[in-house]
């Protein structure tokens, strides 16, 4: 690859643990669980009645004609992006709009159950044509996966590359990888990149329940997300957004920006296996981590910390552990590995971005966030999972993993600059 180095100069997030970077990081260090009974809708009758809901969120103000174009995931993305651009000192900076691009991991929004039921009732009583005419024209645009990237481009007047990645739980990791690639080849000087998702909705709970993917520990929600613990029984739905400002080193230096970390490498692989399962030998996870190391020109021993995908499903955590063994050899047992999903749940299309932000914070603050609810050792998950309490440690290089339904895997490496 070209010699151009890529740095991170701004970060923002909106998560169940907190509505900005500081509050989220504070929650992670305290080992706080953001999981609780669902309040957004009445979960009676659902197999899972809890989640990591985003609460207290106020969408950013949009003026003029844009004010009608709203969707939850777009609002989350915008709030996180405003924080990230602010930290980067780019909110009011004069920039060539063609040198600012956007790359977002997102999925199409699903209609709420209430909306579906209402539409079904209208079709029944007044006919399909009435239901058609009652559909707001904006729905097709704002519910599309591409909406957050379009909204950010419009808000920040970003006329460079505009990409939307939809690979389920790997979406934002791959979106960030694309942003770095665009910068390296000179397509842009600054890329606003990350992911956003909204999941604590009836149809998502239902759909994942039907697949048996969610924890059903309804009597103690805050203890439900327990990655790598032997008694883990599924993941917990989270939601929110994470956004980062990536920049070429030369551009960051020229404008005197504060550099938070360097993005060292990106790798992707496919399981080529089954849609919802990953192979037990963790081959796809291993390939993705090795591809990131190769991209960065690093050896396995150079990595000091892994923020695992660690969903708290039996299969992912076993397969990821096998993949880490495969990629890191003897170093695997010396390497702290934690899953922040134990605290904020699974942000799906946004998890790769938020977890990369956690890695950057770890580099900067010298503290590794824990895997909470870790109580019972699983013989096939035999790594150091940083159980239950944050751990001070010097971390120079951190790796973030994201693996998704459909079999796409993405790994990102960040380093202290």
């Amino acid at each position, binding site marked *: 690859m070209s010699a151009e180095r890529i740095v991170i100069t701004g970060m923002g997030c909106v998560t169940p643990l907190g509505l900005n970077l500081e509050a989220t990081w504070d929650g992670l260090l305290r080992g706080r669980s953001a999981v609780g009974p669902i309040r957004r809708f009445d979960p009676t009758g659902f*197999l899972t009645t809890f989640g990591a809901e985003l609460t207290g969120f106020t969408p950013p103000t949009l003026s003029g004609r844009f004010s009608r174009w709203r969707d939850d995931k777009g609002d989350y993305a915008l709030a996180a992006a405003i924080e990230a651009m602010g930290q980067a000192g780019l909110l009011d900076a004069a920039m060539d*709009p063609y040198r600012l691009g956007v790359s977002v991991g997102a999925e199409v929004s699903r209609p709420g159950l209430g909306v579906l039921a209402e539409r079904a009732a209208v079709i029944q009583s007044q006919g399909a044509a009435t239901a058609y005419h009652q*559909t707001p024209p904006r729905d097709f645009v704002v519910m599309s996966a*591409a909406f957050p990237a379009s909204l950010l481009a*419009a808000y920040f007047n970003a006329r460079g590359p*505009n990409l*939307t990645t939809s690979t389920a739980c790997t979406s934002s990791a791959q979106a960030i990888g694309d942003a770095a690639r665009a910068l390296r080849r000179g397509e842009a000087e600054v890329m606003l990149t990350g992911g956003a998702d909204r999941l604590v909705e009836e149809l998502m709970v239902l759909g994942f329940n039907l697949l048996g993917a969610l924890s059903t520990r309804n009597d103690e929600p805050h203890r439900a997300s327990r990655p790598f613990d032997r008694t883990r029984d599924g993941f917990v739905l989270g939601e929110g957004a994470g956004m980062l400002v990536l920049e070429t080193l030369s551009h960051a230096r020229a404008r005197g920006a504060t550099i938070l970390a360097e993005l060292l490498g990106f790798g992707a692989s496919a399981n080529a296996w089954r849609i919802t399962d990953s192979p037990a030998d963790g081959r796809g996870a291993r390939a993705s981590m090795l591809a990131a190391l190769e991209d960065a020109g690093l050896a396995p021993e150079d990595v000091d910390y892994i923020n695992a995908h660690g969903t708290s499903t039996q299969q992912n955590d076993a397969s990821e552990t096998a993949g880490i063994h495969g990629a890191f050899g003897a170093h695997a047992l010396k390497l702290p590995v934690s899953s922040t999903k134990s605290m904020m749940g699974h942000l799906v299309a946004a998890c790769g971005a938020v977890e990369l932000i956690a890695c950057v914070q770890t580099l900067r603050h010298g503290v590794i966030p824990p895997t909470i609810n870790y109580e019972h050792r699983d013989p096939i998950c035999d790594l150091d999972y940083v159980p239950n309490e944050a751990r001070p440690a010097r971390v120079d290089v951190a790796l973030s993993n994201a693996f998704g339904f459909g079999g*796409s895997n993405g790994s990102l490496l960040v380093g202290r600059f």
Partner: protein
Amino acid sequence: MKLNIAITGVGLVAPLGHTPAALLDALCAGHTAAAPVTGFDVTPFPCALGAEVTGFKASNWVAQRKNLKLMTPAVRYGIAAVKRAYADAALKGVDPDRLGLLVGNGAAFGDTVDLIPALEAGFEGGGFSSARFASAQKLINPLWLIKGLSNNVLGFASAELDARGFNQNYCNSAVGGLQAIGEAAWALMEGRAAALIAGGADSAVNPAHFTGFGRLGLLLAGDDPTAARPFDVEAAGFIPGEGAAFFSLERPQDAAARGARVLGRIVGYKDTCAGAGLLAGDFEAIAYGAEAALAQAGWARPDLFIAHGTGTAFDAQEAAALARVFGATSPPITSAKAQIGHAVAASGPLSVAIALEAGRQGRLPPMPFTRAPIAEGLDLVTAPRQAPARRALIHAAGIGGQSTFLALEVDP
């Protein structure tokens, strides 16, 4: 670094033809795939027409037959086109870890039809109750969520081909397919894979798209297929289409080393967005993208411009951008959307397949129903034309202001 990536295979599933030669023949003969839609009731919608794929049997293309019921039509087309591109380039033997897929596709809204039995249970005894709905979830196919995943072409096709390498899935309005090809080309330049199969698959011939595009006022009203007229003063909307086109891509030296036939080369790719100009209908970003792609390719002008050309108000912006870039006389401009409809994320890749064949034959397909140009200086191809077309510039645009260009050099 000069972008230069070889196309060594094509896979197509399209209305009017499943090979580039058959498709070009039909387009040049003035055929249209637009016909009254029979698969669902179109009476609630302003548009009665669809340009549908015919003569396609998904079970010929999916080895794991039990997965067929989890696949939407677009996913089925995509898997078939990926496999055709793989076979056309004879990629068998490439290291699975160095083989990957990049896919552009559309909105997978999931299939709410599957929820109806549970919704009906929710309505039992009066008003709707989510608790009754949830308690009736046994009536829903347990794999319902899987059907709605937006990356199913990638997931299923990579498993069938054992493609374990670099991959992506762009769910990005009508530009995702062209972006998949451009991003794949750069990933090969970066050495991330030995071969990548990239393209797009989509279908707009379903109630969700008729509702979405219809409510935005983009669909052609009525049932006259010859009213589809890109760049015409009377242009009044597009016909929903569908299909898939994928391409096997390799670095030229890798293709040469294994003795692969090279159909053409990708020599330019530029992605821009209207940004804050979106609501103002600003065409500047389109012109910027065209100029950047031409500069990357090292061309002053292409032999052929395959426009996004939907036959909506967007045509005027595209025309203004062309005027900005090419001045008083444009290169020959065409669009296949009048005849094969708008296949959204697949539309850009379908244009690439058409450009490859047009370049090979030196024959430009027309927009047969276009009569009165919306602007002067546009060289609109309205009748088939014998002309060299080795250098094609292809454009796709999205509803959120996305604009993507690909520059294609066809090897004779």
